[in-house]
């Protein structure tokens, strides 16, 4: 082992001493198993069996719902990073803006639907449930489309000039994050205020507030189960799109080597704009469907940006593996919800603890290289 020019990192040390890394890895696994075991023992002592099952099942459902939401958001972040090589610091702000857009569009659509002077009141009649569900779908799609246009516009007018200049890109996207966050604060107030959909219609009873009751404490919010399905549906669509369509394959190929894709005859700049629109649209969609559950909040921009980073690093998506975002989101979403139900004081930091452990065991994340 030699010290080189006074610069020496723990990573280099591990590189030179694979047996130490192996040892650390074994120690980390043992610590993890013991910690997990202790948690289970502690939980079993603390709760009755029924209470334990109820909490565990709720953590699973809520965790999956949160994971899917995070996955929708992070897949947009990943696409922009993968193809355009831009770390979009404004992605959390896109997500936050999507939430407010969903909120505003929902209220606007509902008002239009309820207006007796317009034909919608005849279409829906007294069926407030159908009306509110339609309004909700309109709000989610509306937020997606508006954010796609905002993202595409930002790419076309600003980011486009800065490809190949990472420092300027970071400054630019960080700037957009602050600008968008501040606009949201001016309009909707500081992060102390969260906005939820509390409609004056039957959506209140079934779709958002509705509960599946299986008895014995097994109650699940309908909306969160809907989120799980939505996440899987969008993931499935994207998976098929990436495998089966030429443009999907071009995006994948571009993530590997964008210059070569262009040299084969594809307008790569056009593809960049499309990917920015897709990424921002996904952020808008996930922000909008978050509103009925966690709400729209001007502080989400930063919180969810950090989650996006953790998910990418944990999943190993920075090595260009799309699956990485999916597994990363699962780990982050589930661990946050499990912590919330079993060890509430860890809720806000559990993801970072897990990130540190995973980075020690597998420095490249779950799907990346060692």
């Amino acid at each position: 082992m030699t010290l080189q020019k006074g610069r020496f990192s723990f990573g280099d040390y591990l590189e030179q001493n694979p047996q130490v890394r192996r040892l650390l890895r074994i120690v980390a696994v043992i610590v993890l198993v013991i910690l997990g075991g202790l948690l289970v023992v502690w939980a079993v002592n603390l709760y009755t069996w029924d209470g334990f099952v109820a909490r565990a099942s709720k953590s699973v459902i809520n965790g999956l719902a949160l994971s899917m939401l995070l996955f929708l958001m992070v897949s947009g972040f990943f696409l922009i990073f993968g193809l355009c090589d831009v770390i979009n610091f404004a992605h959390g702000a896109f997500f936050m803006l999507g939430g407010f857009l969903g909120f505003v569009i929902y209220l606007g659509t509902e008002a239009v639907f309820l207006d007796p002077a317009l034909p919608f009141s005849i279409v829906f009649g007294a069926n407030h449930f159908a009306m509110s569900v339609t309004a909700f779908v309109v709000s989610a799609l509306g937020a997606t489309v508006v954010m796609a246009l905002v993202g595409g516009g930002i790419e076309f007018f600003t980011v486009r000039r800065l490809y190949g200049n990472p420092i300027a890109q970071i400054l630019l996207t960080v700037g957009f994050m602050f600008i968008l966050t501040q606009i949201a604060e001016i309009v909707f107030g500081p992060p102390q205020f969260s906005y939820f959909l509390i409609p004056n219609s039957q959506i209140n009873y079934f779709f958002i507030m509705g509960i599946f009751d299986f008895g014995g404490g097994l109650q699940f919010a309908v909306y969160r189960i809907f989120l799980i399905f939505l996440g899987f549906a969008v993931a499935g669509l994207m998976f098929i799109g990436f495998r089966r369509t030429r443009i999907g394959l071009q995006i994948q190929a571009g993530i590997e080597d964008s210059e070569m894709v262009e040299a084969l005859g594809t307008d790569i700049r056009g593809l960049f704009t499309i990917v920015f629109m897709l990424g921002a649209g996904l952020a808008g969609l996930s922000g909008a469907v978050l509103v009925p559950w966690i709400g729209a909040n001007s502080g989400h921009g930063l919180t969810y940006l950090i989650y996006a980073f953790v998910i990418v690093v944990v999943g190993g998506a920075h090595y260009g593996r799309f699956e990485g975002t999916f597994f990363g989101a699962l780990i982050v979403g589930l661990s946050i919800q499990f912590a919330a139900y079993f060890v509430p004081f860890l809720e806000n930091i559990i993801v970072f603890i897990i990130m540190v452990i995973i980075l020690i065991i597998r420095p490249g994340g779950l799907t990346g290289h060692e």
Partner: protein
Amino acid sequence: MKDLLEIENAHVYIGSFYVLQGISLVVPKGEVTLLLGRNGAGKTTTMKSVLGIYPPKRGKIFFKGEEISSLPTHKIVNKGIGYVPDTRRIFGTLTVEQNLIVSLRKGSSRNDMQERLEIIFDLFPDMKGFMKQRAGTLSGGQQQMLAVARALMNENDLLLIDEPTEGLSPLLAKKLIDSLDRLKEFATILLVEQNFRTVSRLGDNYYIFDNGKIVHEGNNMAELIEDKALVAQYLGVSI
């Protein structure tokens, strides 16, 4: 029109490096033109400036009589240029078939693809066997076949082929050169090669590069091989 590609006094910079210092060359239709010279002489840069990746600061490039020197890469390529890069640069996470689909240009149909595949399988019969395989798991020779096949997915008038035999065993290299020989009937070829003896039977014309300039040109490969002094000075000792 006899000359498919014409470069007129091109000066090319990469960053602040003055790489091509006034290159002029022509690629006649239906023939194979070789760019020879040592590592770093400017052969690959010449190709990349034709493709618009490093557009010339001064000078002009004409393709089919049309000036292309200020067009973006994809527009140049879509005029009918196929590119086989020097380190293959296949898309390793995609399958071979998906690599070929990515190479299809806008407006090509399933039928076109089938037609092109027939030409490719005729040239590289082995490829049928690994169409569904992930390209990253292919051997060097197979990857090179894929890299050439990618350029054949569209009807191109000109093929730019950069160091095709690099890293291949002599036997594989010979097989590949045989295939390239048959490619001549489909397209005009501009070929970069360091190891000029392996491709000497392909070439109709050649240009020798040294330090970003063309120092010698001719159209008789046999004479070039005999010219020991020239070979030693500009092409190094190739074994």
